């Protein structure tokens, strides 16, 4: 298709999913405590959210090139891309997670504490499930952003769907570029739909009608 073999396309898509998806999960895991801190510690919230948000403004190409110097990795190492994409995910998700925790009604949180929940147990059992809708919305944005941004890594030679763009550009062929764009869109949509579905499964209470 478009001068690209199916097997090659499949391999590139898997690579792309790996390089965009794993940082998304790691980024979420890092953002959960950060966002929780931002929502709970009054003076820490604004600087923490502004600070992590600012990381999103670092140009990705610059980050891909700088990270080997910081991490001591080879320029072609996947780790550079994984770490960079994790930084972008954290930049987008910290605010979202903080918003999610803030969305938990105060009286629910207080009731939980009054029942005898310890802080950590309450966060896991009460706050977190209630924050799912807001966190999932942010996660969808971060997923699409990651799928789009990771293709830049082709410029430093890390293969994924972005490699089709550099390839098409070098050979002056439109085919691989169109295929690359389409595959990226499909991947983004798939990730987005998966997160939406998971969020739906995690929040059954939101879809029960109010009986008359």
């Amino acid at each position, binding site marked *: 298709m478009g001068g690209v073999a199916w097997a090659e396309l499949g391999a590139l898509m898997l690579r792309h999913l790996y390089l965009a998806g794993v940082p998304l999960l790691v980024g979420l895991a890092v953002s959960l405590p950060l966002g929780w801190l931002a929502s709970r510690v009054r003076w820490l919230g604004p600087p923490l959210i502004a600070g992590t948000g600012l990381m999103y403004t670092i140009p990705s190409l610059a980050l891909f090139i700088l990270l080997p110097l910081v991490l001591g990795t080879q320029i072609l190492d996947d780790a550079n891309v994984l770490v960079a994409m994790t930084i972008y995910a954290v930049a987008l998700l910290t605010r979202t997670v903080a918003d999610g925790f803030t969305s938990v009604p105060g009286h629910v949180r207080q*009731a939980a504490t009054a*029942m005898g929940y310890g802080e950590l147990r309450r966060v896991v059992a009460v706050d977190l499930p209630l924050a799912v809708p807001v966190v999932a919305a942010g996660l969808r944005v971060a997923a699409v952003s990651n799928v789009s941004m990771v293709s830049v890594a082709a410029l430093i030679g890390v293969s994924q769907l972005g490699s089709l763009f550099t390839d098409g550009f070098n050979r002056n062929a439109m085919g691989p570029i169109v295929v690359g764009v389409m595959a990226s869109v499909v991947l983004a949509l798939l990730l987005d739909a998966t997160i939406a579905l998971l969020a739906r499964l995690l929040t059954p*209470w939101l879809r029960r009608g109010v009986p008359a």
Partner: protein
Amino acid sequence: MIRFDSVTKTYDDGTTAVDELSLEIPGGRITVLVGPSGCGKTTSLRMINRMVEPTSGRILIDGEDVSDRPAAQLRRSIGYVIQQAGLFPHRTVLSNVMTVPRLLGWDRARARAAATEAIEKAGLTAQQAGRYPSQLSGGQQQRVGVARALASGPQIVLMDEPYSAVDPIVRAELQDELRRLQGELGITVVLVTHDIDEALSLGDMVAVMRYGGHLAQFATPAELLARPADDFVASFVGKDRGYRALGFADVAVSPRPERTVRLGEAVPAGSGWVLAVDDAGRPLGWADARSWGGPLTESRVRRFGTIARLGESARLLLDAALSSPSRRGVVVDEHGAVVGTVLADDVLDALDARST
């Protein structure tokens, strides 16, 4: 018994929410903390289960300082009903009510059995137990809140403005049930409200607090109405406190005999107002036979407002008389059967006789 021993709470910004509060809340009773907003009533309540820590002073439950126990463990032993119920929206009613038993480490089956029993006690159905809170009305949610507070069988239940978000009819219903549950279980209830009517109708003891966290008076409702400690309490208790006090006045009024008529029986014209009853002698309503006569049909019967029970307060007897179209207030026995009627004058005479 819960004892406040010179308890003071001062916040970081320098405001004193509670000032040198000393109070003995009796066990097995309903005690109401009432006062205007900013009087420290909620802060006082929350210091009992350490949601708020006092700046100085001690709070003792049955002689034990609450600060000697880990806060979470203490809270699991005390039921708590919050404003708006504070239910967990992501859990079903059953699972909400199972919260404290589970926190106490009971196994699932035991927690479920306790929760099911509490749900039933609070007047909810098994079908409602499977629902999410958002699927219930405000009154039903408040019932779940009560069930959740009772599930593990605590000796003490704290209630923070529990009925402020429900309409007056449902509120009256829930208040009645609280009284019933408290009586059945013999628990100690400490309830916070800004509504003096609620305080007077629910409390065995009422602590009136004033701005700045001072205790203005701690007394029974009848005592508060009869002998307010100062102008603040007098004005807070309200202008019509003479009438309200009737709610706590027992008067010796013997009902007058009243002729009753069953449906289908003939009523001679010119009999005046006649009292219709069912086969068990329970009142159905009044029929106007001043200018009409004949067999009594249901359409002739007018429903009436209040019915007083034997031995009820002067206020209810008076209300029964005043709300009756015949001006004769219907008095029933414990089975709901008509004993007789009272006139407003009978009640007033009895009150006069009592005070002389």
